């Protein structure tokens, strides 16, 4: 056990799987960095340094820099996966999936079904998401609801360094394509992380707080904000359960429904836009499956239905906050009878 950042936990997971399985390769733009340039190799290790150090250890055959051609190399990763390798490809910012979505949702996601179960696609696509970097509209989106919508893809949103490592190892060992969302604001967050390998199964939610008065379901970075809100509410006399589903596909619906059956109150926190979001999806699930348990209308806390703004003054009010989550919980528990 040692203190590791979210970034180090992800790197640690990839490196340990590369040592274990020679079929695991890494590819992406500047994943080592400096290819063909006169200065250092392994100059960047990815734009925010997650894969730094992998090429010196594993060589340029296994850690491949690519041209800026997302369609070609994400498609190549899918083709390599279907023919025997286990690629971990980096789609630098999830916003860039707009240029290669066909290779993800028409090719990789479909192989297994479309080919009658006679293909596997053990592909991991790592990607950065989320606001908070003053990176504006084309480098700050969440977009995980879009991937969650596509059958055949698994979608992972680690909210801590510990989860990041265990979920990444699981992702690499999984035989379906996995989209692994890394929140760019969380890379430097640190926590105790075991040095040895471990996996966290997909579709098993984590209860980060347990309480009786309300249920918060939150995703990715919003889990930490929900925890902060729950801690504040506890000081004010309300006990709240916080559920981190950890994967949106598969989704641990059972844990969410069991909790709502106990608390009768639900707040869903999602950094993405409100329409067709995880917030809308969870609200639909609970309205359909647990309506009789609800003691108050479901509340959602999301970003607004706008592009992500640049100005810090605007971005700070765009992102959901612990205070907004707290206010939503107070709204659903107002006048509670138990």
């Amino acid at each position, binding site marked *: 056990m040692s203190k590791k950042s979210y970034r180090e936990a992800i790197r640690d997971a990839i490196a340990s799987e590369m040592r274990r399985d020679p079929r695991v390769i890494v590819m992406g733009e500047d994943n080592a960095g400096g290819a063909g340039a006169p200065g250092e190799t392994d100059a960047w290790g990815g734009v925010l340094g997650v894969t730094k150090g992998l090429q010196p250890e594993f060589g340029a055959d296994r850690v491949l820099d690519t*041209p800026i051609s997302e369609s*070609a190399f994400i498609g190549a990763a899918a083709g390599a996966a279907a023919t025997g390798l286990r690629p971990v490809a980096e789609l630098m910012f999830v916003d860039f999936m707009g240029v290669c979505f066909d*290779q993800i949702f028409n090719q990789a996601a479909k192989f297994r079904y479309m080919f009658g179960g006679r293909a596997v696609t053990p592909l991991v696509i790592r990607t950065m998401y989320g606001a908070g970097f003053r990176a504006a509209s084309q480098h700050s989106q969440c977009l995980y609801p879009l991937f969650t919508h596509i059958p055949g893809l698994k979608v992972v949103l680690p909210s801590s360094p510990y989860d990041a490592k265990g979920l990444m190892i699981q992702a690499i060992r999984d035989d379906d394509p996995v989209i692994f969302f890394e929140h760019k604001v969380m890379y430097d967050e640190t926590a105790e992380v075991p040095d040895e390998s471990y996996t966290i199964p997909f579709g098993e939610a984590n209860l980060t707080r347990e309480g009786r008065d309300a249920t918060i379901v939150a995703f990715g970075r919003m889990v930490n904000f929900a925890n902060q809100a729950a801690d504040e509410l506890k000081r004010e006399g309300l006990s709240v359960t916080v559920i981190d589903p950890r994967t949106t596909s598969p989704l641990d619906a059972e844990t969410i429904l069991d909790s709502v059956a106990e608390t009768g109150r639900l707040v869903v926190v999602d950094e993405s836009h409100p329409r067709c979001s995880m917030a809308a999806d969870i609200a639909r699930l609970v309205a359909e499956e647990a309506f009789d348990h609800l003691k108050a209308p479901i509340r959602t806390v999301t970003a607004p239905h706008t592009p992500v703004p640049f100005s810090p003054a605007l971005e700070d009010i765009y992102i959901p906050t612990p205070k907004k989550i707290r206010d939503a919980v107070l709204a659903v528990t107002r006048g509670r009878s138990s």
Partner: protein
Amino acid sequence: MQHSRQFLLDSYRSMATIRRFEDRVHDEFSGGKIPGFVHLYAGEEASAVGVCSQLGVRDVIASTHRGHGHCIAKGCDVVSMMKEIYGRRDGLCGGKGGSMHIADIAKGMLGANGIVGGGPPLICGAALTAKYLKTGGVAVAFVGDGGSNQGTTLESYNLAKVWQLPVIFVVEDNGYAESTASAWSVGGSQLGRAAGFGMPGIEVDGFDFFAVYDAAREAIERAREGGGPSLMHVQLSRYYGHFEGDAMTYRAPGEVAKLREEKDSLKIFRKQVTSAGLLDHGEIDAVGDEVAKLIDEAVAAAEAAAMPGEVDLATDVYLRY
């Protein structure tokens, strides 16, 4: 290049199977027995067989929406293919893929593809696998003239060159992307594009099996020896429409009849091998008879095969969930 009699008979069998298969699918589709979209390869046989007759299972191909010919040339089971096109449960893809998605990974057939330009990036990945695992395999992306204008294809030229991958891009230029002439839609030239990416390129008469074979042999050898990607611009034509039901009003009157008369890869092959004394007409006719019987059996088997049921709807989507 000296070819064995067996090789010549096998190659003819493969081309004749494609022709017969496609003519029969045309008839059965017209009769309402085949659902969905089908895009037929008849007329283009020499391209698929000229390339695939020199590939093995370690070699991978990716095809297009016009994929039946590539599947047959790469060794996919013809009866299972017909069942798939009929949407049957024991079709090659369990009835879940259909005409546009026939695949057989075990045979190195990475799929027909419903997305124009979908295959070239995938084939770069298959080539990367071969290169990394040192299998000696090569990977072939078939694209049409329409697909040659997709960014995915051009990006793949670049990636294959930068990574020095064992890839052959086979641009099958049948003159029309849907209804739009390739003479109108392709800026510059296919060979100019190859040169732009530093790849060897070659013009090939796509009605001449031996011309395709020789061009492909050189490109495949180069790829196997680590010489990187090549491009073949194969000029040919299709006898049917873009899809079945296409009235082909964009083609010149009499164009297809003239092609069938003057540009028929099977007739040309027959003439070449008989005039050189390599095979006689009787042997070739016998292969034709075997093929006719096989296609009859395939259609009968497909018609008799069971449809998938509701139980099949949600299987094969995740390996574990």
